[in-house]
């Protein structure tokens, strides 16, 4: 945890967009142009704010310094940034599960991780080169509250042990992990 200014973190930005074509794309430019890595976009098209705007939640990864640049750039482009930064930011964790992923009910595994830890699954990839009945792997990206990563990993370990799955955890310490 040494060079904290270089450390990439996960952030959630809530924006209110005017209901016009191209607005979402225009909002993503300041993020990409300032070195942010988009993780997910939650676009509630049917749900309007009291002011008639569309709420959009963007998860992204960036260093703290770049994140400040992103928020500034969004404001400069006249976007209404509702929430950004420390209050909302969470940690992301990527893990790889291996074993009889499918046969041990992947969907149950994921919902138990969610229930047990309050972590949200933000991304999932599956590789089953020998078919779903054989040993396969899943890469799961979890968003957790800052400071809750160890607790989340503990819970993942317990569930994996029960289902005889191998967990490859991320290395959290150090300069580049």
């Amino acid at each position, binding site marked *: 945890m*040494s*060079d904290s200014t270089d450390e990439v973190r996960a952030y959630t930005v809530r924006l209110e967009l005017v209901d016009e074509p191209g607005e979402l794309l225009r909002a993503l430019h300041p993020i990409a142009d300032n070195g942010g890595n988009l993780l997910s976009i939650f676009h509630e098209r049917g749900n309007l704010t009291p002011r008639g705007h569309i709420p959009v939640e963007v998860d992204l990864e960036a260093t703290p310094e770049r994140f400040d640049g992103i928020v500034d750039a969004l404001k400069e482009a006249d976007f209404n940034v509702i929430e950004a930064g420390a209050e909302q930011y969470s940690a992301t964790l*990527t*893990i*790889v599960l*291996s*074993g009889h992923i499918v046969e041990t009910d992947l969907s149950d595994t994921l919902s138990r991780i969610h229930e047990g830890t309050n972590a949200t699954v933000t991304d999932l*990839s599956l*590789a*089953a*080169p020998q078919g779903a009945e054989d*040993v*396969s*792997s*899943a*890469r799961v990206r979890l968003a957790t509250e800052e400071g809750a990563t160890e607790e989340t990993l503990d819970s993942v370990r317990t569930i994996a042990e029960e289902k005889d799955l*191998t967990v*490859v*955890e*991320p*290395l959290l*310490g*150090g*300069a*580049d*992990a």
Partner: protein
Amino acid sequence: MKLAIVGAGAVGTSVAELASTYDHTVTAIADSKSAAVDPAGIDIAATLSNKKSDGVVGARSPADALESDYDVLVEATPTTLGDAQPGFGHVRTALERDRHVVLANKGPVAERFGELSELAAASEGSIRFEATVGGAIPVLSTIEDFGPNHITAARGVLNGTANFILTRMAAEGLDYDHVLAEAQDLGVAEADPTFDVEGTDAALKCVIIANVLAQGETTYTLEDATVEGISEIPGSALELASEDGRTIRLIGEVAGGDVRVSPRLVPENAALAVSGTRNIVQLDTEHAGVLNVSGRGAGGPETATAVLADVGRLE
């Protein structure tokens, strides 16, 4: 310095071959059954060719080598767990005779560090064991130079065999069994690879680092380590890691009083993601950020280099 070498495997014979280039004299060398002793310095080439042709290093007994006159005992017998014998006994004999000991054998330092420290404290001789962690890489001497209380954590890749297998699995998209067989053909993995692939070897090295960092306040043994190997990692896990710009490495960690070895996700371009048989150790320092030391973590001449560096520190 006059060296007595116990153990005539890859490390012991390399120390014997390289000693003269460091201006040391080998006055005794022993394997498990035999020994050669000559106070004027033994003929290394002839002794090692004896070992090749007849399977013995000389006409004397191993006990003769231990009782001979020397300045430093080089303990290079194979690492054993539990009571760490016969290595521990060799070290005890030398320290009780007030001689220095340089170990390449991890067993006594990982399994009986407390007793070893007491023996060393009561002796005129001292013990050094740089070669037990990371082959040629100066891990323990770096910790010693910085001061163990100024190092807050250590982590790294400390087993070349496991790292070679993971590197090949990621590069070729092959499964564990396939790559293990290839590694055995190349001589990178032993016929029984358990010690390397199940994380035991890396864990012993981490336990030794933990012992050095704790400075006698606590002592660690293999039992204190949480150890998980790589044999359950399928090729598909590395494939998914790679799609995400990451890879999997068998990482040993010493932090907050815990010792842990397990396969971990690390960024593909991270310093810790070394390839092939290369090893790396990363130290978190109190005042100077993160320090990486990397190099060849195993092999006869590589480990002998660390042994002879220790001998030099005793002069």
